[in-house]
């Protein structure tokens, strides 16, 4: 396990929702991250087809992009999501895991740009694409509970 994978492994353990849906680390590197979402009947969106809900894909890709963002930086940073857009290419095949890959493709002084892709049997047949932007903040500016900032 490289140092990036060790970091992601720790972050996955700390985020309870990631534990709850069983998100697994596949691989990580500087600004790159691949996660795996196992099939889970509790995450079904369409009860007639057994297809996983888009929200679970949003969580997979948001997590992949959101964890890839600080991995791209050399200094410890907090990277809240500014926005995320997800395009659903095809319905995910029920019963099969979904791979979520993310890469950071541009870093500026304040903003990090990332994109992601979700697929099952082949990367050439994506289930979803996403783009997301993140703020880059020094860890000390993170807001504490009860201190609402705008």
């Amino acid at each position, binding site marked *: 396990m490289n140092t990036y994978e060790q970091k992601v492994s720790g972050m996955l353990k700390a985020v*309870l*929702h990631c534990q709850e849906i069983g998100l697994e680390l596949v691989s990580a590197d500087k600004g790159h991250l691949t996660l795996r979402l196992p099939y889970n009947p509790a995450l079904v969106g369409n009860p*007639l087809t057994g297809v996983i809900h888009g*929200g679970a894909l949003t969580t997979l890709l948001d997590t992949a992009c959101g964890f890839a963002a600080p991995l791209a930086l050399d200094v410890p940073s907090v990277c809240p999501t500014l926005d995320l857009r997800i395009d*659903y290419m095809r319905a995910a095949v029920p019963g099969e895991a979904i791979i979520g890959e993310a890469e950071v493709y541009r870093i500026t002084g304040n903003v990090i740009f990332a994109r992601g892709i979700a697929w099952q049997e082949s990367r050439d047949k994506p289930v979803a694409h996403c783009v997301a932007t993140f703020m880059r903040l020094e860890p000390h500016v993170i807001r504490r509970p009860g201190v609402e900032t705008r």
Partner: protein
Amino acid sequence: MSHDMSSQDMQTLQAAIAKARQSGNAETLVKNIPYARFIGMQAHCFGETWLYEMPYGKHIQGNPSLPAVHGGVIGGFMETAALVHCLTQLEGPGFPKVVDFSIDYLRAALSKPTFAECSIVRQGRKIVNVSVHAWQTTKQEPVATARTHFLLSEPVQE
């Protein structure tokens, strides 16, 4: 695992949709969507206004130091709210398919209930555009806004 739609599942879902449309009670409908049940979503109807709610729980926690709701779950909640909104507001027996979803995060969603309101911005023959507004303390302080497109499916054969 078989996922073929049985006509019984179909009837159960259609009945739940019809009940929500007629009586404003979407409890059975929400119970029939596993993901909605998983995140604990509720749908409340006040006359013509539908309000969606997601109580806080550890199972949806993201950032542990705040603690905050996982951003992906906020997205999932808003998308599910939009789906249920389409099912209750639009005529026709089909199940809308999500085409895309775009969310702007405005504030961290903390450890308290999150609410959402949806509005159908435009309904075409095949595509519906829905905008979703989510907040916690007051509506004037949104935690996120989102918009999504659904493709209206062909009427399903029984």
